[in-house]
Every structure is written in C-alpha cells, then in structure tokens.
C-alpha cells in the first residue's frame, strides 16, 4: 500500500502547480482552470486522509467540494462570457480599468 504521505505530497505539488498557473497565465479561462486544478488537489488530500483514518467524512466533503466547484464554474463562466462580450478580449491584462 502506498503511504498517505505520497498522496499528500502529490496534492501539494498539484496545488503548487495550480497556484503557478494562476500567476503565470494571461487567459481568463486558463486562470479559471487553474482554480479547478487547485480544488482537485485539495480533493485528493481529503480522500487520502479519509482512507488513512478509515472514516468516510473526507469523501462526503469531497462531494460537497465538487458540487460547489460546479456552481462556481457556472457563475464564473457566465461572468467570463460577459467580460468577453464587453471588452472583446480574454487577456486579463487588458481588463485592468473600470472604465471601458
């Protein structure tokens, strides 16, 4: 069996990569996807600990995280569509003034 540490380290690596993608990418949609990557990394940690402690609470919480991520993705993508429509660009650096 793989020790839980490995899973948690993998989760940390994925989370770190998600943070880096958030800083580095310039496309709004790619930034949003990095948020999903971070959420997934956290889910992995939850399930790893749920297995280590032999309780199912971790898995239940993962379900809730997935549901909340779905709701957030829906609203976030709606906002992205609005930004794309109004500013006609998907580059976050161009969306840095409140005035159009």
């Amino acid at each position: 069996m793989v020790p839980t540490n490995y899973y948690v380290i993998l989760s940390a690596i994925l989370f770190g990569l998600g943070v880096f993608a958030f800083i580095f990418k310039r496309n709004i949609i790619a930034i949003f996807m990095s948020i999903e990557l971070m959420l997934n990394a956290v889910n992995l940690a939850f399930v790893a600990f749920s297995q280590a402690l032999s309780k199912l609470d971790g898995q239940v919480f993962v379900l809730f995280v997935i549901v909340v991520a779905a709701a957030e993705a829906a609203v976030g993508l709606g906002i992205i569509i609005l930004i794309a429509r109004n500013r006609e660009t998907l580059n976050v650096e161009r969306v840095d003034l409140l005035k159009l």
Partner: protein
Amino acid sequence: MFFVLAALAVIGAVSLILQKHPIHSALSLIVVMVALAGLYLLMGAEFVAAVQIIVYGGAIMVLFVFVIMLLNAGAEERTSLSKMAGPPGLLLVAALAAFVAATIAKSGASVQAAAQTGALSSTRGISEMVFKDFVYPFELTSFLILVAILGATVLAQREKS
C-alpha cells in the same frame, strides 16, 4: 500504479501551464481529473471516483470547452508582465511545496495508510452520512446550485435593447 497515475496528473498539470491555446489546457485538465479519479479508485473510494468523472469531467469541463468554443478563444499572447511573473512565481511555488513536504516529512510516518476501506461499502456509507449527519449542508448545496443556475442564466443573457 500510483506512480503512473501520479506522473500522469503532474504531466497534465504542467501541460496546463505550458500550452498556449486554452482548449489544450482544458484537455490537459481533463487528463488530470481522470488521473485523479484513477487515484481515488486505487484508494478504494469508488463512488467519489465515479462522481469525479461524471460531474467534474463530464459536466464542468464540458462547460469550459463550450465556453472556449463559443468565445472562439485564440492562442494566448506572452506579454512582458507575464514573463516577469514567471521566475518569482516558480520560486514561490517551489517554496510552498517544499514547506508542505517538510511538514509532512517531519510528522514522520505517523499517518500511514490504514487497511483498505473495503469494509465500509463506500456508496452506502457515504449516502448514510450525507442524509443523516450532513443533511443540512446537502439541502444548502442544492439551494446553492439553484442560485448558481439562475445567476448564470441571467448573466449570459443578451441585453434586451
């Protein structure tokens, strides 16, 4: 097997960062999610693995792909600001990962993998918990989804002018 899936997940995440076109980033993210679902299966969390693929990989990422297709997102441009943010970002992330790894290593092997959770049937156990202990958050999340649907519908409407 763990290393195969872990490597797949990390390669997917790195590919998410390195790809220029958002659709390729989306495909890499799908690869990460499928790899993570494989890891959940490896840990014996079958229901969570199935839900991950159905909801995350089959609905949320489809939404992403739709939006990318509809907005006709093109390849990304490299500006001076993003080039500036590269190296410091890398350093900071490496520091974060090193910090977490050090914390885990210091806690020692105290949290080892327990025996397989084949004893508690995953789906039955989860459903019992959701509907008994966590019924209030469950109802709240359903309300949250309703609000999100309404919000997304209103946001994406064309203006009636």
